[in-house]
């Protein structure tokens, strides 16, 4: 019996699950860093968000009588990224609530992967910030990390204002190296810039992401804060900018498809983040920026469509 199907009859070996798995791999350096900076509870938080994300996805699809999509690893990516957006002291049950909003409300009720209007992890984080503001802003970090260089006998978690919050108070006593290595408080996935950049390099080399969105996002923030008289490198190394620009703003489903669209998207994220960081009471602007630009993505796509060969008006009158 011969198989008959439409051409082409060969495919390359990229798959959705392989792409998602590559993202998980890229997040491993930051997972390891979170253990060293925040302790074992950071890992517990990641386990809870990943397990609950997988459960919510499996359960909601089962209820809706749809096929099981756990094999595409996208729920796992959402779980890890959601955990990365939480402080280490965040109650585990609240984390599971966050993943419910991320997976079920943010993705499954719209039809599953490919249909969501916003990055599920960002949506989950914003729901949690609005619902549990105190727990979401109780930033703790391992004592020995903060006191690097001094002999410390206890490895407890201590509270500490994040670098951006400190900046708003007028103190910025963190060195660039401390910021780069993540020796300060914050949510568990955003602080270790070095670990995030290793992962980002992996994604770029594997061509999972392109440089357009990260560069236009980060570049815009650095230029705008510099124009506002603040230190662009401090801003680059603080808050969720690197995490957001490389791992969340680049989500395929919720960002524009063409290169001009991506650049506009990154620009928009950068403007909103900068405005929030400079002028608002909130120290953090990445989540809201990405969410707002996600909403604008269909409109950006509409004005940045790729024009075919022979389709541009200029071609009609070409001389040769």
């Amino acid at each position, binding site marked *: 019996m011969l198989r*008959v*199907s439409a051409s*082409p*009859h*060969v495919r390359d070996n990229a798959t959705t699950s*392989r792409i998602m798995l590559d993202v998980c791999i890229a997040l491993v350096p930051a997972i390891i860093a979170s253990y060293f900076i925040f302790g074992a509870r950071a890992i517990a938080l990641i386990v809870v968000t990943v397990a609950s994300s997988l459960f919510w996805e499996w359960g909601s699809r089962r209820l809706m009588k749809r096929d099981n999509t756990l094999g595409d690893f996208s729920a796992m990516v959402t779980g890890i990224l959601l955990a990365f957006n939480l402080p280490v002291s965040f109650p585990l049950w609240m984390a599971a609530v966050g993943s419910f909003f991320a997976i079920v409300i943010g993705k499954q009720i719209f039809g599953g992967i490919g249909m969501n209007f916003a990055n599920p992890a960002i949506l989950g984080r914003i729901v949690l910030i609005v619902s549990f503001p105190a727990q979401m802003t109780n930033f703790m970090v391992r004592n020995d990390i903060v006191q690097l260089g001094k002999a410390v006998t206890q490895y407890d978690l201590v509270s500490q204002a994040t670098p951006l919050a400190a900046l708003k108070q007028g103190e910025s006593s963190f060195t660039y190296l401390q910021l780069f290595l993540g020796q300060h408080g914050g949510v568990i996935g955003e602080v270790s810039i070095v670990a995030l950049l290793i992962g980002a390099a992996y994604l770029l080399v594997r061509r999972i992401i392109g440089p357009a969105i990260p560069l236009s996002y980060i570049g815009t923030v650095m230029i705008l804060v510099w124009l506002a008289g603040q230190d662009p490198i401090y801003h680059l190394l603080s808050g969720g900018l690197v995490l957001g620009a490389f791992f969340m703003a680049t989500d*395929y489903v919720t960002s524009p498809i*063409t290169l001009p669209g991506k650049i506009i998207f990154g620009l928009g994220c950068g403007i909103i983040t900068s405005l929030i960081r400079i002028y608002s009471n909130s120290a953090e602007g990445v989540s809201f920026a990405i969410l707002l630009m996600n909403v604008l993505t269909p409109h950006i796509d509409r004005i940045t469509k790729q024009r075919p*060969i022979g389709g541009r008006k200029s*071609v009609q009158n070409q001389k040769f």
Partner: protein
Amino acid sequence: MFGLRGVHPRSNKHTSESELVVINEVKSVRIPMAMQIGPGCKVCVKKGEDVKVGQLIGEPIAGMSVPVHSSVSGTVTSVKPQVKSDGTMMEMVEIESDGLFTVHESVKPPTVTNKQELIEAVRAAGLVGLGGAGFPTHFKLNPPPDKKIDRLLINGMECEPYITSDEFVVRNRLEELCLGISTVMRLCEIPVGIIGMEVNTPEAIKIIDHATSSSPHLADLDVTIKSVPACYPQGAEKVMIRNLTGREVPSGKLPHDVGCLVMNIGTARYIGHYLLTGEPLTRKYITLDGSAIKVPGIYDVPIGASIDEIVQLTGGYTDKPGKVIMGGPMMGVAVDNVEMSIIKNNNAIVVLDSEDSQIPEEHPCIRCGRCVRVCPMYLMPTELDQAGRKHDIATLTEMSVMDCIECGCCTFVCPAKRYLVQNIRIGKAVFRQHQQRLREQA
């Protein structure tokens, strides 16, 4: 040179150095009355009649039609409609071969001294575009008088995996190729000729580059080689025109609208062959390859021979064949029946085994944009795919569905394994239906 867009399937050019093997032991041939774009021919032989090689068996019915000739000598055993590879029914002449390949008396080299005689000769040869599209060559050589042609582009790209038939022509039929190019340029008064080839055939490029200065046919003509990095589908007509001349064919228009005449290298060679011998098109060089073919190679086969007979005569299948493709794996047509005839515009038969022919399951689109980045026509396949599934005429029109060349690059790279080309074809059918309705209402 523009940034090349396309994909890089495994080239699998295993038969690049193969010796030509002539296959004549076929028991019978089944020749359809149209092996071209446009209307075909009317049968002009009867059941029981004896025919010879090169004898006319189908008379053209329209200006665009090219005649059909017998590829064997023997007796006509049937004249009846049978199923073609695209599923439609077509009148076919079945001839039992006597194995002698006696040539008909009418076969003799033509006299060609001007453009009109060239066009008549090319038509009498039954020549269509041998690159796969099957466009009647005599028609192509005769564009409307207001279209001035200043570039002859010879397509030697052969970008599909496996296929090496064109490379064979360059290495082994160089004189005929040069004569063909030279005649077309001189008699059609085309000042500049460019031969496009992919860099992965360095031997062939050297041979033909040398010929542009050393061959008596080409020496005083402006003919150059342009070698293009290997990237499927740089051999696609509109892509090649842009690569070789910088000109873009406007949507819905033809190469002659930008002063170009594009011709496959095998077609150009056949013009030379016909001028020297007068033999009409009755045989093809076919690349036979794929994981289910025991003895891959380049075979000289009579037109009308069945795929199955050719495979059996050349060594057979390795295992049970999973998919039989007329053409290459990117744009070829999968057939459901190995008795299909090899026709004028076939260049290859690729037979994949069971494992290689698995059809993957579709997953949802994740908007990764790979299809958009590889599309050589700068379309947005994911949008066309959605619009095709939904019969969304507005989007199909806005996103220029008819500009799609169905090269398969989008589907090749899609990580969700979506059947993009399939649904774009449905989109085109829906669009044509809509245009038809508009015409009827007007």
